[in-house]
């Protein structure tokens, strides 16, 4: 029999007299109580040991057998113990005390004390009922061997006192254990709640779902001291797990763990697992949190705690989802405002900028508001914002200001600004929203458009004037040619030739005039600019006069370009004439041709594609140009030469040619430092077309009938005269209808029609078509000062040609001859 504690005062164990036996029991009991009353620090004492000790102290001189019977709450016997006395007598005390079991049962139920035999003075046994916490707990029986002296009254009282004392110690211990267990449960709960609280804080501080997931598993593992905790959210898109001893959770799945599934939000225990649903109102986002603990089973408090933790996680997830929505909306608005092409400034009502977008940074040269730094408001703008703020306060609506020539970081800009007061929720101080737009470029663009429109108008006027002019020039040229052949006086012939050359210049001028108003039909051919310049060197020298030295710097390897040959010559000539005019006291003109590679940056400035170009440079040592002149020198009708000397068309034509050819023209100049024009033409790899002189024999003239339709009387008469002189039979009408009538009436063959395109009634083309139907084989030569060769469309192919006005008589005759020659 194990003894857990030895009674410090060992009682005398002899069978002393009644008083001695009872006193011995009392003395030993006092020692027993002193040992067992308070549970000192250390492992919990066991009830068995307590009962063993009690039995031992009773058997030590007070009883030969001690019988302890305990029952549970339902009255069933849970313990029956026999303790033999010191004499070593064993066996069944029931043999000594018949019916003892019945007595014990009775006493357990009644809680009283009985002696045996019930009557008489020779009590051989005392059975005391034990009541603990007001219920039957068991009974202690003290039994004497037959040879021992029976119990007297004093012994029975001592036995009762000891048994009741035992019951009270048991009760005290029971209460102590219960309160300790309650305390422990409370502390465990407190620890879990403590960690739950920490977990809630951690989870609510998470940035996104992944953070929530990792914070939740870390907390869950700690709260339950689990071996492993896993979370699986949003159909597995967010998952994390953590094991014991891991400082941080790992994102992702653990396929190797057989995590039970979960339904609903209630937490439940399944084997080693505690699982609980986690999720937001969105069922698609639902997931589960699971923890596994092998060392100890989960208790009902754990289920409660898990439910709380899952709720905290769900709340955090929902708030993350909400926050993300807000962030997304905020980011979208921020992106819109930041990308707005207009400067947007958020200012306090006194006009101090608080925040601004990127356009405002650009327009006002401010630093980024995120990086900090001072936004210096130009004084003019500050004044305008003040006024606008005042207006906005009064009117409520947006107010506007146009600011011209505001100095922004050293540059003069035109600004348009408007402001509105914005009352933001939860901000007592209203915000001034200021919009600022830099309209400098916009204004310049508008000015340029207006200029271009003006140019176009002028061009249209010029073009219509040119049309009439052409007719006049054709007349002058024609008659002077006739006159030249009609007179013999050398002096007069010379004068007539002067008339012709003047008319010829006038003709060139009208051609240029026409080219301003509409696109000129260019006839680009492949040519070598160097060769063209060389071929025209003599002409240039004559144009420049004796005081200007011409210097040609030609790189023969520069290559070929594709350009209208006539216009190209004209451009060189025009540039040379300008240079000559800039050098009234003589100087040096350098014309250079070279190949250059235009890099991307320069190409962008010139407005061309990067690549190889042939550069034609015309540089003089003249008076040079100021900024203003340089800006406008390529404009049509812009001239510095005064009303009588320049047309203002030369450089405009040059630019038109260069641009139409895929190139560009640039000017560098400074007053007193001369002027350099640079014309870029894209290099071409095409072969140069060598124009050979025609070897075809000149066809015989005359022997044909020509019908002339021309509404200009003078010109018609000239044409009739020229054709007649060259041996043709000529019929003539002033309108298309008249010509048709003549043709109808004329019985002989009509070989050729020469007709103006514009005739008032039916057009020259219609006339030609009509006649070609009634008289197959009829040739048609259409002339016009405004139309081009496209008027020939619909006419008999190979039997029609176009002659632009103005034309020389010889050109008319050549054209007629050419057409008639095809007949053969």
């Amino acid at each position, binding site marked *: 029999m194990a003894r857990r504690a030895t009674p410090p005062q060992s009682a005398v164990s002899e069978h002393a007299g009644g008083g001695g036996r009872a006193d011995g029991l009392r003395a030993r009991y006092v020692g027993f109580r002193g040992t067992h009353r308070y549970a000192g620090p250390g492992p919990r004492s066991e009830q068995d040991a307590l009962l063993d000790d009690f039995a031992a102290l009773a058997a030590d001189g007070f009883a030969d057998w001690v019988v302890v019977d305990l029952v549970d709450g339902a009255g069933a016997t849970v313990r029956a113990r026999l303790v033999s006395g010191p004499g070593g007598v064993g066996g069944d005390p029931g043999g000594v005390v018949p019916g003892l079991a019945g007595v014990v049962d009775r006493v357990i139920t009644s809680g009283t004390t009985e002696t045996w035999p019930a009557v008489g003075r020779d009590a051989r046994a005392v059975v005391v009922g034990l009541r603990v916490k007001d219920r039957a707990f068991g009974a202690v029986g003290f039994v004497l061997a037959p040879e021992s002296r029976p119990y007297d009254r004093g012994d029975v009282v001592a036995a009762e006192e000891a048994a009741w004392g035992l019951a009270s110690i048991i009760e005290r211990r029971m209460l102590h254990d219960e309160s300790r267990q309650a305390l422990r449960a409370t502390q465990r709960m407190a620890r879990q709640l403590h960690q739950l609280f920490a977990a809630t804080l*951690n989870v609510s501080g998470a940035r996104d779902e992944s953070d929530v997931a990792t914070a939740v598993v870390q907390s869950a593992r700690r709260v339950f001291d689990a071996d492993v905790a896993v979370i699986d959210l949003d159909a597995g898109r967010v998952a994390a797990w953590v094991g014991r001893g891991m400082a941080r959770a790992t994102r992702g799945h653990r396929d190797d763990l057989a995590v039970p599934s979960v339904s609903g939000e209630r937490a439940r225990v399944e084997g080693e697992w505690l699982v609980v649903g986690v999720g937001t109102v969105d069922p698609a986002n639902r997931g589960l949190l699971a923890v596994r603990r092998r060392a100890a089973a989960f208790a009902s408090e754990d289920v409660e705690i898990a439910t709380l933790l899952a709720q905290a996680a769900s709340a955090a997830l929902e708030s993350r989802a909400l926050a993300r929505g807000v962030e997304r909306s905020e980011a979208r608005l921020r992106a819109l405002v930041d990308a707005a092409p207009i400067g947007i400034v958020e200012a306090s009502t006194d006009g101090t900028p608080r925040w601004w977008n990127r356009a405002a940074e650009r327009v006002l040269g401010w630093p980024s508001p995120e990086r900090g730094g001072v936004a210096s408001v130009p004084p003019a703008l500050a004044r305008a914002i003040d006024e606008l703020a005042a207006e906005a306060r009064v009117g409520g609506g947006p107010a506007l200001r146009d600011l011209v020539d505001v100095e922004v970081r050293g540059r003069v800009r035109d600004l348009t600004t408007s402001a509105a007061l914005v009352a933001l929720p939860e901000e007592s101080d209203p915000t001034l929203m200021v919009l600022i737009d830099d309209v400098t470029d916009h204004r310049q663009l508008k000015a340029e458009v207006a200029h271009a429109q003006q140019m176009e108008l002028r061009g249209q006027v010029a073009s219509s004037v040119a049309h009439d002019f052409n007719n006049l020039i054709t007349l002058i040229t024609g008659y002077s040619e006739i006159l030249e052949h009609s007179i013999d006086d050398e002096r007069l012939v010379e004068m007539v030739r002067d008339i012709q050359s003047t008319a010829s210049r006038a003709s060139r001028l009208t051609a240029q005039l026409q080219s301003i108003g509409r696109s000129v039909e260019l006839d680009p051919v492949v040519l070598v600019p160097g060769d063209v310049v060389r071929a025209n060197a003599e002409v240039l020298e004559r144009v420049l006069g004796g005081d200007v030295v011409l210097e040609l710097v030609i790189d023969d390897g520069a290559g070929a370009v594709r350009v209208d040959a006539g216009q190209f010559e004209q451009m060189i000539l025009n540039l040379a004439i300008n240079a000559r005019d800039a050098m009234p006291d003589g100087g040096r003109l350098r014309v250079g041709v070279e190949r250059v590679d235009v890099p991307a940056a320069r190409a962008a400035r010139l407005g061309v594609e990067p690549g190889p170009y042939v550069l034609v440079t015309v540089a003089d040592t003249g008076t040079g140009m100021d900024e203003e002149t340089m800006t406008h020198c390529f404009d049509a009708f812009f001239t510095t030469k005064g009303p009588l000397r320049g047309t203002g068309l030369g450089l405009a034509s040059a630019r038109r040619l260069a641009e139409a050819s895929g190139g560009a023209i640039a000017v560098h100049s400074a007053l007193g430092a001369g002027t350099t024009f640079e014309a870029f033409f894209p290099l071409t790899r095409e072969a140069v077309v060598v124009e050979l002189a025609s070897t075809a024999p000149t066809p015989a003239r005359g022997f044909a009938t020509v019908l002339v339709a021309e509404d200009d009387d003078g010109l018609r008469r000239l044409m009739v005269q020229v054709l007649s002189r060259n041996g043709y039979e000529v019929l003539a009408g002033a309108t298309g209808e008249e010509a048709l009538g003549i043709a109808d009436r004329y019985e002989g063959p009509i070989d050729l029609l020469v007709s103006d395109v514009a005739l008032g009634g039916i057009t020259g083309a219609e006339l030609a078509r009509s006649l070609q139907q009634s008289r197959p084989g009829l040739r048609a030569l259409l002339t016009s000062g405004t139309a081009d060769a496209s008027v020939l469309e619909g006419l008999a192919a190979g039997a029609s040609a176009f002659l632009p006005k103005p034309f020389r008589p010889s050109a008319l005759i050549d054209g007629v001859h050419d057409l008639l020659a095809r007949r053969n």
Partner: protein
Amino acid sequence: MPVSDAGPFSEAALREGFESGQFLLVYQPIYDLQTSAFVGVEALIRWRHPERGLLTPDAFIDVLDSSDLVRPVAQWTLETACDQGAVWHDAGYRFRVSVNVSARQWGAGGIDDDVRDALGASRFDPTLLVLEVSRSTLESDPHARARLRSLAELGVHRAVDDFIPDEGELERLADLGVDVVKIDRTFLAGRTGSGELGAAVATLAARAEALGISVIAAGIEDADQREVLARESIATGQGFGLSEPYEADEIDRVLEDFSIFSGKPL
């Protein structure tokens, strides 16, 4: 460690034991030697082995130290001790919790991060946490000073747990950044006679106080040692002569009984 089978446990067994929650911490009380007041606990690791019962680290420390479980176990130890400390603190008790840091954990670096994590998760008062390292660990670490400083910045106490009161040693440790020294148990073990021990620790308390260092006497085995140390003003101590280590809920009981029998010498 010559070979892996030199230890009785395989690393896998250790891992299985750790990961299934068989490791636990027990706490040895530290008392005020004058008043017997309860002033702290030292957390000690145990393994409740399913077949072999409760094991002290002697049985598995070699295997643990040579495995990659060192860091997880150390992290778990810190975490659990801080959690428990926070619970006691919340229950109204304010005493220090000492945690041992192994040479491996210290050498691996990141000890301050581990401590910060454990404190953050438990919300334990950093000034109640004492980290104990050995002298040799500090001496072999060229970054010891910086590490001790970063721990001090967290508010955590830094202890040397095998302090021998040699000439100038106290000053060297104070200079390095240590603020608690625990007199090594072997030092007491060799000095049973009161005269010998008294001479060895004479003036130690005064010097330590001047340097702002707390002194704990470890391994107190009997009342004589305790009496001598108390006489020499060594404020606190621990040892089997005072109290064996208990599990956390037994410590609760000690605290409870202590509050019932206040003034009762322990």
